[in-house]
């Protein structure tokens, strides 16, 4: 390959997403680095490979969607497994929705995840600030303890949490589901590192104007940290929305169940009705997938920054 062949292809459209992660080098790219040769065939090959993978990955969801629109009879007819002879129908969806528990579980999931997110982000940001910007006896040791606690798998604590909630008579309450999920040492660690990386000059100006710690934290550092707080919040929210084991153990009252717990209890209670089961799966999947479509860039960024847990 000679140097004249180098910048041949026009810049690819970099569409949203992770682009803003790499603010250091936002200059438009002259070419793509990993293109498999400059030839048209290798490009087509890569496109073919990607298409096959995407189809394999989307197929389960497409199949669920198709099943959800079938009548119960067609869904369990092995002879017409692809296109239903009776045509498509909303019956599955309306039956599931009218039963009433699914909207309730969605609401529970939303309330619980929102509460977990607000508490976790606020409490972790305050602790991050304390470990990054203040001095008090035992600060280093407490931070070391927090970092060590990152290793503790929540699954380990299920039995003692249960015992704890049992003796506090809190089982089957929102508090029991929410509170244990708000302890996130890894988020304290990430936010502490983040505050460490912010320059001290700005807050020094505020200090000279007589601002106390709370003012510095609330009106100087937090506004500067909005992207990081959003990343942490999104990550915590997705985790709480999808959390299964603890909500499953701590609730037995269907009125308090979250979506992941409730939806699986239906399968056991009603026997298997595939069209309805897929209709409820589609409805349950919808909120976060729709949110992802609108906020894809933020979610991608959140995973990429918080997902490594500050490693």
């Amino acid at each position, binding site marked *: 390959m000679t140097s004249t062949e180098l910048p041949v292809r026009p810049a690819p459209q970099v569409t949203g997403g992770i682009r803003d992660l790499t603010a250091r080098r936002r200059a438009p790219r002259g070419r793509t680095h990993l293109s498999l040769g400059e030839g048209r065939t290798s490009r087509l090959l*890569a496109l073919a490979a990607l298409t096959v993978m995407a189809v394999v*990955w989307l197929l389960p969801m497409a199949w669920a969607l198709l099943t959800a629109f079938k009548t119960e009879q067609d869904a369990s007819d092995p002879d017409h497994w692809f296109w239903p002879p009776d045509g498509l129908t909303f019956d599955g969806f309306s039956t599931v929705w009218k039963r009433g528990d699914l909207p309730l579980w969605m609401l529970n999931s939303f309330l619980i995840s929102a509460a977990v997110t607000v508490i976790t982000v606020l*409490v972790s940001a305050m602790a991050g600030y304390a470990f990054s910007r203040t001095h008090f006896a035992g600060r280093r040791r407490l931070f070391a303890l927090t970092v060590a606690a990152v290793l503790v798998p929540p699954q380990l604590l299920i039995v003692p949490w*249960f015992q704890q909630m049992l003796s506090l008579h809190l089982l089957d309450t929102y508090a029991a589901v929410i509170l244990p999920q708000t302890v996130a040492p890894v988020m304290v660690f990430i936010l502490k590192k983040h505050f460490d990386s912010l320059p001290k000059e700005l807050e020094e100006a505020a200090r000279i104007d007589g601002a106390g710690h709370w003012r510095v934290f609330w009106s100087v550092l937090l506004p500067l940290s909005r992207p990081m707080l959003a990343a942490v919040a999104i990550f915590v929210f997705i985790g709480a929305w*999808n959390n299964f084991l603890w909500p499953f153990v701590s609730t037995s009252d269907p009125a308090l169940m979250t979506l992941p717990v409730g939806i699986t209890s239906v399968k056991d209670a009603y026997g298997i009705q595939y069209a309805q089961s897929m209709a409820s799966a589609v409805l349950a*999947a919808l909120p976060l997938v729709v949110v992802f479509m609108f906020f894809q860039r933020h979610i991608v960024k959140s995973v990429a920054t918080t997902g490594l847990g500050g490693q």
Partner: protein
Amino acid sequence: MSSPHASPRTGALSVRRLLPPGLLFALPFLTLFAVFMLWPLGQGLWMSLTDQSLSAHDPSYVGLDNFTEALKDAEMWRALGHTVWFTVLSTVPLVAVALGMALLVHTGLPGQWVWRLAFFAPYLLPVGVVSLLWIWLYQPDLGLYNHLLDLLGLDQVAWLSDESVAMWAIVLTTLWWTVGFNFLLYLAALQSIPDHLYEAAAIDGAGAWRRLWSVTLPQLSRITMVITVLQILASLKVFDQVYLLTKGGPNNSTRPVIEYVYDIGFTGYRLGYASAISYIFFALVILASAAQYTALRRREK
């Protein structure tokens, strides 16, 4: 001090000394941390030394009996084995497939939005949805995969009820569900490889494959280590999808150790014994973390 304000002031001062502003900021977290992590950790350890049960009787101290029982418990070892086996089977494809996806998407082909949605969207599904969906996909006669096998003229597979297949089926579901997470981490890492490395390689006459082999992959080696470590730790904690897909069956052949803890504690009511097994599992996690930490350290030198 002689002024009348003296005593309240010294009072305020000593409160300030006892609770300096920094500690006040950390206090909400430290309280939750103490109540819902440190206390339960101690409580669990204490329970593992007792015969605590969900039924009414008062627990009594039994020393290390639970631990000696666990070490002789064949079902415990079997469950621990399933957890380790799942970790081995799932980590390799979850890292390799994520890397493949990220490399392909990063070539800058059109439709970035679609690729990212296709590979990452499953990660956003609650495990309840994932299991409902895959139980349906794996269904004999009616499920999509057995239909596809029929079309290819192959025999149907009893995905979730054949002991020799069930664990693989769970791994397949897990791959589909969570690979998007590692894919995004790789994609972000690829975008932060500095341009000048590629320019230098191109000037040296390196072709595309050569650039992939001698620039991209070496630049990704650190992130690959990190992703592998995180994946191993995540896989060791497997419970949700196994419990919902097979309830640990058939014949407990897929039951991971967390499910064994759940079965012992909440179905068998033996909270003390369940705690002991939890701590054996914790020892495994610590061991894995320590091994990986040393490996990472050695690499960095």
